[in-house]
């Protein structure tokens, strides 16, 4: 699948379709029968909740069953303020959002440190707890709830009819969906996608994984709270049922069925599930001859089938029928400020007596070496020599047990990966970590995360376009530099392994690093790919990039580096020019085994 390159004179089909969708949506409240309009209002409100889930679950990869509970907090907050304090709904909206945001922030701090499957289980737990809190608090009306919630007025018009209310819901959904789309096509959106597969890549480029998770979690909760506010004033009463765990599960189902990685998928899922439920509520009781909540059987089966046959949800299937649209390249108004680099020959990185202990295993034992600006240093050794552990010490992934690592004159032994990256260190990964569903351009732009400043709010409002343009053009230049410029708009997943490694180098270069760390860039490459890689690295060397190259392929490094450090069994075995290392007897023994004559003598 090749995304077409951007062009400015082609008719933007997607835009046309979006305009048509908006026009249809605007006319529906006038054309449909009243009962259907009521349903439409609910779909619009649910879609707002699901949009939050798309960001949280689909993009960031945090599964939450607790969205309904946040919707409940928003709904109950406005219900209490408007009925018991007599506030205007427009005044209670910001307060509802604030209350929900604070609760979400607190729960987020508490639960988002949890990883993998612990988080969804936690959301189930507090989803249930909040439901019983709503139901058991007399001030909130217990399980019967609160009634007589006033309607919302817009310019003196009371929105008591679903037909008028639908327009308010449409505007809210439109703003939320647009904001979500803006966010996804921003620096923050890329960081969110990078976090999905695990924090390693994102943190290596300066993303604070926990901070971003909390932000998105609160954002999703705020969307749910907005939906709750709308729901309370459209139903005009609240009770705990629509905010229980069952509802939380249904919102997740909407996202899964529709397509949890797409904003449009969320809308599709909300519409589909709500419609199916209405139909089933009419049909099933007659079919089964009794009353009850039978539609869950069909929902459950539907979700299982979707997971088995279309794990990405239904929207991607539809999207294939639509014309593809490439990324729009923005005009470059200003360039990113380059980092001031130290003069060649000044000390850049220094490792002093580094030790890394894993339980009883000493993976790195008392290793020291230095690296000067403008130099290419090779760190080599056979498998299991401790090279990767050393790499993790320097990059802050797994800090040293003792010893000191200095970079740019600062002690980085205890710094996080992100802090070290911001000092000017940029890396690639031994096991290639690119996002296969994104284009080369977007993957490369990820490397410039730390050079941008726009946060989640500016991204939501698209106020960061200047910065985005600068990043785009910098990424294009780096892709050109490594020889991938022609394919900038293809998907990274289509590249061969060798090219993916080169893509990782381009991504690291976008950060404008003082020091480039390459983790076994030749591992798993074919001969031809290795030759191309060597050519590229020589070119970078000639352009003055300082490189620390971790490799176990001797031939590859010999012709490339200025100096070598050889490790074996966690110790430094030798250090010196390629020539000196080649003549070192210990090194030959480590690589080739014991000399026959020596063995005979022993």
């Amino acid at each position, binding site marked *: 699948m090749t995304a077409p390159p951007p062009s400015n004179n082609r008719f933007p089909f997607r835009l046309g379709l979006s305009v048509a969708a908006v026009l249809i949506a605007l006319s529906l409240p006038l054309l449909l029968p009243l009962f259907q309009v009521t349903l439409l209002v609910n779909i619009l409100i649910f879609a707002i909740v699901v949009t939050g889930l798309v960001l949280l679950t689909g993009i960031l990869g945090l599964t939450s069953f607790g969205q309904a509970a946040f919707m409940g907090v928003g709904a109950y907050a406005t219900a209490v303020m408007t009925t018991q304090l007599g506030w205007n709904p427009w005044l209670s909206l910001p307060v509802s959002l604030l209350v929900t945001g604070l609760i979400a922030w607190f729960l987020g701090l*508490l639960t988002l440190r949890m990883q993998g499957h612990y988080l969804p289980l936690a959301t189930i*737990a*507090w989803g249930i707890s909040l439901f019983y809190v709503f139901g*058991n608090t007399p001030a909130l009306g217990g399980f019967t709830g609160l009634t007589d919630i006033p309607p919302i007025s817009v310019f003196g018009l009371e929105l008591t009819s679903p037909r008028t209310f639908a327009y308010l819901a449409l505007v809210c959904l439109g703003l939320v969906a647009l904001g979500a789309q803006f966010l996804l096509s921003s620096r923050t959106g890329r960081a969110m996608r990078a976090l999905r597969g695990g924090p390693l890549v994102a943190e290596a480029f300066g993303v604070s994984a926990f901070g971003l998770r909390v932000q998105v979690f609160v954002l999703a909760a705020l969307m749910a709270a907005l939906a709750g506010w709308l729901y309370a004033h459209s139903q005009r009463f609240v009770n705990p049922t629509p905010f229980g765990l069952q509802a939380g*599960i249904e919102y*997740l189902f909407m996202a899964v069925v529709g397509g949890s990685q797409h904003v449009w998928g969320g809308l599709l899922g909300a519409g589909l599930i709500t419609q199916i439920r209405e139909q089933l509520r009419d049909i099933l009781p007659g079919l089964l001859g009794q009353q009850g909540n039978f539609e869950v059987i069909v929902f*459950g089966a539907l979700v299982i089938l979707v997971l088995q046959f279309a794990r990405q949800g239904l929207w991607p299937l539809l999207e294939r029928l639509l014309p593809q649209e490439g990324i729009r390249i923005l005009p470059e108004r200003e360039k990113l400020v380059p980092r001031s680099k130290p003069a060649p020959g000044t000390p850049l990185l220094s490792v002093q007596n580094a030790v890394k202990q894993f339980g009883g295993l000493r993976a790195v034992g008392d290793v020291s070496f230095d690296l000067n600006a403008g130099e290419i240093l090779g760190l080599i050794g056979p498998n299991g020599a401790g090279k990767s552990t050393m790499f993790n010490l320097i990059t802050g992934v797994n800090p040293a047990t003792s010893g000191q690592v200095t970079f740019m004159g600062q002690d980085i032994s205890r710094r996080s990966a992100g802090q070290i990256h911001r000092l000017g260190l940029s890396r690639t990964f031994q096991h290639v970590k690119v996002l296969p569903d994104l284009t080369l351009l977007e993957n490369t732009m990820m490397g410039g995360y730390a050079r941008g400043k726009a946060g989640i709010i500016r991204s939501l409002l698209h106020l960061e376009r200047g910065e985005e343009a600068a990043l785009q053009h910098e990424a294009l230049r780096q892709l050109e530099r490594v020889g991938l410029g022609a394919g900038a708009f293809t998907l990274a997943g289509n590249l061969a392994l060798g090219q993916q490694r080169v893509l990782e180098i381009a991504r690291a270069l976008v950060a404008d690093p003082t020091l480039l760390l390459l983790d076994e860039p030749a591992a798993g490459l074919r001969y031809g790919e290795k030759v191309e890689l060597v050519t590229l690295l020589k070119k970078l060397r000639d352009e003055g990039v300082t490189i620390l190259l971790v490799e176990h392929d001797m031939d590859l490094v010999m012709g490339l580096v200025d100096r070598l450090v050889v490790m074996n069994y966690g110790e430094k075995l030798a250090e010196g020019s390629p020539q000196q290392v080649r003549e070192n007897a210990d090194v030959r023994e480590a690589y080739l085994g014991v000399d026959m004559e020596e063995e005979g003598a022993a």
Partner: protein
Amino acid sequence: MQIFDPTIFPILAADGLTNGAVYALLALALVLVFAVTRVIFIPQGEFVVFGTLTLASLQLGRTPGTLWLVLVLLGIAAAMEAFSLVRSGQTRRGLLTVGIAALLGIGIWALTGWLAPLKAPLWVQVILTLGLVAPLGPLLYRVVYQPLQNATVLVLLIASVALHLVLTGLALVFFGPEGSRTPAFFEGNLTLGQVTLSWQSILVIVASAALMLGLYLFFERTMPGKALRATAVNRLGARLVGISPSSAGMLTFTLAALIGALGGVLIGPSVAVTYDSGFLIGLKGFVGAIIGGLVSYPLAAGGAILVGLIESFASFSLSAWKEVIVFTLILPVLLWRSLTTRHIPEDEE
């Protein structure tokens, strides 16, 4: 505090211990299923519900709806199996599978149809109940989870939640909205000084302990048990030495369903079980399982018993808030667990 009153405390403790024993069984099943298949098995509680309500139907001389579920799942599973066999060119084995499934189905149908209206003795009904609910495990594994074998833990979790809803809905269709109790296996009480225990409670505790011992022996002494342990430790390694992940999954789910059904039979006389009780019962087992980090069996069992006790004391003094207390308790445990477990992101996606 009233709960420390010497006449009330033992009653609450005995109650908590009885429920805790059943939660502990469920916790063991959950740990087992997760360790072997990476499935967070939310519907575990539904096996309990199906156990109690199937027995209750048999008590009334009705054919339990469980039968139809078993037959339909058997049909789907046989069709899926046959389809994949035929597609890989083994047409004869495919036809054989369908034939065997058909015979099995007719057998189960005839046996249940004959026994159900007879109002057979309680122990016969219990065996029939176990025989109807236990096959749900492997059948559900084949139909729902085996096609998702390579999916992430989170996808499997969503599938579990979906399956939970399907089973809850079906339980409502089969057994109706009313709660049911089954007759006690033993009448009467045992009085030891201040403490009075019903024989039924003692049976639950003894039977749970016996089952745990049986599981221990199964895992320590038998080849299939060791194969399951090997799969739990290292899926790929187990596969390399010839343990098929699918058959390990089926065996695990059979055990889980059997444990669930037994749990249902055991609590039937003391708790009124409705079609939707399974979720909360299962989740309480979960709290225990999570205390054991979804890996340690003794910790999981201990945690589940603790949950039973907390619930029992909470329901006496703060009955409306008992669920809030039990499920808020899980949060610090989850946090502690997730901070102490090393997470390897490479395993996901």
